[in-house]
């Protein structure tokens, strides 16, 4: 690989709303290589990729692209289309499909094949079928409506869309996040095929195994800075983790606060089940942090939603503080003292155009049973104890950074003084400082006697914070581990490699 690199980005800087998220990052990608971009949540991987794809424009730095016959030239894309024309295709982290259209229409959206000026649907279907066949996908009809597909098939559609653009460089942001094992296998084949054809791939993933299986080189980002760029052969998984995290894992999580003791069972589920989960037995005690671990799609969010009454359990029993209760709506859950920090804070947690104050008191305002003057008066104190950074309580939350938005969400629930709090991916997409703050908040909550149910995709978070870890596999509890268990143990259950023998049927 001595020729000029396909892509070289130099000194890329980017700020959102005054908060820098990338500081002078360099990235080079050679022709035909699979290049991994790794880093913690919020490290800036997606942002860097979006700059390359023309979704965002960089505040500083240069991008030199060496595709096709045109020699190296400086580019600065202001629109995804420009990037596509220059040979850079992207599969974004958020889905980018139109559910009402068919697979073929989505794959060719904006680039419909035409015959005599008219859309050639036959060609569209044929080419889509070819692309899919090329990718080794056999069970996806080009005419199927995307809205009716499984998440995995939608992801495949996205990839097919990128591939069909005939790009020299394809960027994939966590393409396997929604895929089951067999489907991941499919993606492996797919990436290798692209590589054989001389296409370069920029591969963003949190799954270390994939990175070592697939990638030639690895670039590590941390807090928006380039930490390391190495050949895969020259680095071990342990080194990589150290590079990503930058400190020893144990040091990351605050110690359990003094005086925290597991008390009475506050939340008890027996044989809980609905269309998405089954046979759930769960106890969360006062002062206890229970982690829920599992792969994507294993049903963690569904348990949270069932406990909170969004998609209630249709079988089994739930007791809160010893009292049996049928939680059929969020209002009932809130009345019973349960709080849920949802996984998607923008769609489910915040009214983005309202002020910090309005959001923070939303739960109190909406529920007469928890509303009180005393609690309202506590809100400012609550916000400052969370170290909220904002111009004031009147600022609209959409102008806050992700971490601060999350603090507002947490504040709105704490304002209601719940007895049980369920946190679904509370640290998703927020920066390290804010994460740390949240970790200590979670510890404090436990110390105050709350029962905490914590869902996190980052295994280390569950391992580092939870007193007990309940591992899900395919909608059922696969096993239970003590806090501090190894990732391998958790993964053994999560992947279904190990099932708990001792569990009652």
């Amino acid at each position: 690989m001595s020729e000029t690199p396909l892509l070289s980005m130099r000194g890329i800087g980017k700020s959102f709303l005054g908060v820098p998220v990338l500081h002078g990052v360099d990235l080079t990608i050679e022709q035909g290589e699979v290049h991994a971009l790794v880093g913690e949540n919020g490290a800036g991987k997606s942002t860097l990729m979006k700059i390359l794809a023309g979704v965002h424009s960089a505040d500083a730095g240069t991008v030199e692209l060496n595709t096709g016959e045109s020699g190296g030239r400086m580019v600065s894309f202001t629109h995804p289309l420009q990037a596509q024309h220059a040979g850079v295709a992207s599969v974004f982290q958020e889905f980018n499909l139109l559910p009402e259209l068919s697979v073929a229409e989505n794959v060719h959206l904006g680039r419909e094949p035409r015959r005599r000026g008219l859309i050639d649907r036959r060609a569209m279907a044929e080419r889509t079928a070819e692309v899919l066949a090329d990718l080794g996908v056999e069970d996806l009809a080009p005419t199927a409506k995307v809205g009716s597909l499984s998440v995995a098939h939608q992801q495949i559609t996205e990839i097919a869309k990128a591939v069909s653009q005939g790009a020299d460089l394809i960027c994939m942001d966590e393409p396997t996040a929604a895929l089951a094992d067999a489907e991941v296998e499919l993606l492996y084949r797919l990436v290798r095929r692209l590589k054989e054809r001389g296409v370069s791939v920029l591969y963003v993933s949190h799954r270390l195994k994939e990175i070592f299986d697939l990638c030639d080189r690895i670039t590590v980002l941390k807090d928006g800075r380039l930490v390391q760029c190495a050949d895969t052969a020259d680095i071990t998984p342990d080194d990589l983790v150290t590079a990503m995290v930058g400190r020893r894992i144990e040091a990351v999580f605050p110690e359990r606060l003094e005086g925290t003791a597991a008390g009475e069972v506050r939340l008890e589920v027996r044989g809980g089940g609905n269309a998405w989960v089954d046979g759930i037995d769960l106890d969360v005690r006062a002062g206890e942090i229970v982690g829920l671990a599992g792969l994507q799609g294993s049903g963690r969010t569904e348990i949270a939603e069932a406990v909170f009454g969004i998609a209630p359990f249709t079988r089994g029993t739930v007791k809160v503080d010893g009292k049996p209760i049928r939680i059929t709506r969020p209002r009932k859950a809130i009345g019973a003292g349960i709080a849920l920090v949802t996984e998607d804070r923008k769609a489910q947690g915040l009214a983005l155009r309202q002020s910090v104050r309005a959001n923070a008191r939303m739960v109190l305002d909406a529920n007469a049973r928890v509303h009180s003057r005393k609690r309202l008066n506590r809100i400012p104190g609550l916000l400052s104890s969370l170290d909220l950074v904002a111009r004031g309580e009147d600022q609209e939350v959409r102008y806050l950074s992700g971490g601060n938005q999350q603090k507002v969400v947490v504040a709105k629930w704490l304002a209601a003084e719940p007895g049980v709090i369920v946190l679904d991916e509370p640290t998703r997409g927020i920066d390290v400082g804010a994460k740390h703050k949240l970790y200590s908040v979670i510890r404090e909550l436990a110390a105050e006697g709350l029962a905490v149910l914590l869902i996190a995709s980052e295994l280390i978070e569950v391992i580092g914070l939870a007193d007990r870890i309940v591992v899900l596999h395919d909608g059922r509890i696969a096993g239970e581990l003590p806090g501090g268990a190894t990732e391998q143990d958790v993964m053994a259950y999560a992947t279904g490699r190990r099932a708990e023998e001792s569990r009652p049927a």
Partner: protein
Amino acid sequence: MTLLAPERDRAGRRPARRLSTTALIYLALVGVLALGGAAVALDGGNLFATANLVDMLTRTSLTGFLAIGMTFVILCRSLDLSVGYVAALSSLVAATTMDGQPGNIPVAIGLVLLVSGLIGAANGAFVTVLGVNPFIATLGTGLILKGYLDTQYKGPAGDVPAVFQQFGYTRIAFIPVSTVVMLVLAAAAVWFLRSTRTGHHMYAVGGDVDVARMSGIRTKGVLLAAHVLCAMFAGVAGLLLAARFGTGSAEAYTNLYELDAIAAVVLGGTLLLGGRGGVAGTVAGVAILAVLDTVFNVMQVDPFAKDVLRGAVIITAVALYARRQLDRTARRPRFTLEGRLR
């Protein structure tokens, strides 16, 4: 390469086939015809007598033109409240340009399409460039046109030559020419939405502008095109008015044609939120309204009772569609009944 229907591998079994929305609406049309026919028959009449068929079909043409145009903008998640004014203005432009001279007809048609197209472009520009909500933008355009019409034309003006009046009056057997033209344009619109890029992209723009933009679609251009087309169809409606009236009439805007058109589009199964539906459904929606009107007319229903019934029918129909859409977002279950027994 196996091309399994994805539904099957997803749920493990093929769900009961659902009728497409358009098919459902045509079924509804048949139902309305049957019920209406029965009601009229009980009343001692015959809904399918030539006179009534002609009446029904004639009613479809004017609303048809407006509703087809409206379908474009609604598909793009926009709206046009100015079509009634555009139609009125177009009837005047047509009639004054023709001025009784058959030779002027081509110029007049061209001018009408130009003027209405420009108004549509203005609507589109307000929405896309100035970022004004379409409801407000087109309401504003409507007001501007109203002022112009009231100031400029103090009543009917212009004179439509007899040749052009044929457009409004001639029939082939019991099918009025205007209805044939409407159906031809509807077919063209179906083709346009299906086969041209701009038409196809309207679904994308209405479905999700961001996705459309990220896929390289010039969303503003598409929206603009939808508005231009909508206004041009309103221009054609104005031509029909001119042909029917033999003159141009500013007063035509008082009939709230825009609301009729929107009602027909929505009855036709096009989502008011954009991204789904089509002209085929719209034609059925127009037809349903026309059948109802004819039935009311034949049965001598009080004109005010007609309004009540119309309002009720529109709400009921949309409520039924909404019901169908509810379960579409449902998440796929993992533990169905058999899962539980497992």
